[in-house]
């Protein structure tokens, strides 16, 4: 799903992220771990060609699209539809005067999902009913009540907003979810729910998950592989169990010791 080789992101002379190798396969969860300024978020944005004003070099293949060579139009097709970006506070990205259902319907229309589904015959019914069914199914997949579609963004909690963002990705048929600190603004109990949803989707639908986080404990419980970044460089990478049980780099050890 994601294949990165020799990625380098520079702002002027300053290298903010340098990733020699990063692969994420379907049904796999890879985590990039590091602190503020380590380049982990930049790496994520680079995958979607969203690093404005930066020099990006190397090879990035996302869902079969060469991100660095592809025209903007091609990129827009994968962004949102096939690759979804989930951020720390999705509420900020939701228009406050639009009901969540309306918002989701517009997104589906924008990406022509209703028609696609009709052609493939994956969903029964026609027109609005079909779109409605996609929406309800997506919302239920993240364990939300379909009633949420009638609500406005300010009426829902942070955890619900985060799950709605994931539901949106599912409705659009995303194959890859890029999540940037998706739970760090949430209460632990709510975080547990969101993490549960992500794990289930990965297992049931073979979603590929690239998670950016500073929480090593959280990462250790869901990631298959881990990349540890510091000051823009990958200092250590490998299977999550190995890296976290026997860290070879002093920085990884420091991160582990810092856990309360």
């Amino acid at each position, binding site marked *: 799903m994601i294949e990165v080789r020799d990625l380098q992101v520079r702002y002027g002379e300053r290298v903010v992220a340098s990733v020699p190798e990063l692969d994420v396969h379907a049904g796999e969860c890879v985590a990039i771990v590091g602190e503020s300024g*380590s380049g982990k978020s930049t790496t994520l944005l680079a995958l979607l060609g969203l690093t404005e004003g930066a020099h990006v070099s190397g090879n990035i293949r996302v869902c079969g699209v060469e991100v660095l060579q592809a025209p903007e139009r091609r990129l827009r097709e994968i962004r949102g539809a096939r690759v979804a970006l989930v951020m720390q*506070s999705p509420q*900020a*990205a939701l228009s406050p005067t639009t009901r969540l259902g309306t918002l989701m319907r517009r997104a589906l229309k924008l990406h022509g999902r209703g028609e696609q589904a009709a052609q493939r015959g994956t969903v029964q019914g026609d027109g609005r009913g079909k779109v409605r069914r996609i929406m309800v199914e997506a919302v239920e997949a993240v364990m939300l009540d379909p009633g949420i579609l009638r609500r406005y963004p300010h009426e829902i909690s942070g955890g619900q907003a985060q799950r709605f963002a994931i539901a949106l990705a599912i409705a659009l048929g995303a194959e890859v979810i890029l999540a*940037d*600190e998706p739970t760090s603004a949430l209460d632990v109990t709510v975080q547990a729910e969101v993490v549960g949803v992500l794990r289930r989707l990965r297992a049931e639908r073979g979603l590929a998950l690239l998670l950016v986080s*500073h929480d090593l404990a959280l990462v250790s419980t869901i990631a298959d592989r881990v990349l540890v970044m510091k000051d823009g460089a990958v200092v250590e990478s490998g299977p999550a169990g190995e890296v976290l049980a026997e860290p070879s780099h002093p920085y990884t050890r420091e991160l582990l010791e810092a856990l309360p």
Partner: protein
Amino acid sequence: MTQTRVAEEPVRLRRTLPKITDRFAAAGAVLIVLVLLATILAPWLAPYPVDRLAPVDALLPPSGAHWFGTDKVGRDVLTRVLYGGRTSLTIAVAVLAMSAAVGVTLGVVAGYAGGWVRDTIMRVTDVFLAFPALLLSLALAVVLQPSVTTAIVAIAATWWPWYARLSASVAASISTRGYVDAARCLGVPAPMIVLRHVLPNSLTPVLVQISLDAGGVILTAAALSYLGLGAQEPTAEWGLMVEQGQTLFTTNWWVVTFPGLAILVTAFAFNVLGEGLRNALDPRRVVK
């Protein structure tokens, strides 16, 4: 790095907008300085004496002798526009200074104190808001002589409640910030907290609003002049000139157009400056 990036568009906007507005702001400031200079230097710049009547030269179109033409009684429009700026800008500055001083003081106190203090101040504010500016000016004109001063007092009396409302709501939100609580916990006296933390952090939106309002004040003053409650003939004042010239627009366009343009340019300059202030006053932009 962990900062939320909503989407591609806002990021791009945020990066380019400040630069543009800064340039605009500079342009606004330059324009205002030019307008100020022109009005201050009016006695030297004006080609004719301000009150020179020449009925023979009435309603001459713009020419080499009269760049902006002449009005109904043969006065040079350029001269009157230059002198008129003195009156109009004085009104604008005086009204805004008075309304801001009263409005912001009351508003910030109301916003910080809350409770019955805020309720009382806001009720008084509402009473003033309920009077239309013109009605209040009429009343004032009965008591006082119609003059520029009367106009200033009348407009200010109806203008300050807006600043009181705005600053009360901003101050109320500032008062819930951690640093205000921290100051309270340090035992800093309330007046000090208001002066040191609440007021400075509430000012930005008010300053921006003030600069956006300058044009409106000039226009309101013009309306008062028209009703005979503000500047009186033969005082040169932009609003008065516009009101007097508007009936001639189809036949002698220059009489109304040039003072009108003067108002437009000045109002625009203040607006642009307001935008610039908004950016300049953002603490995150103070010398990196």
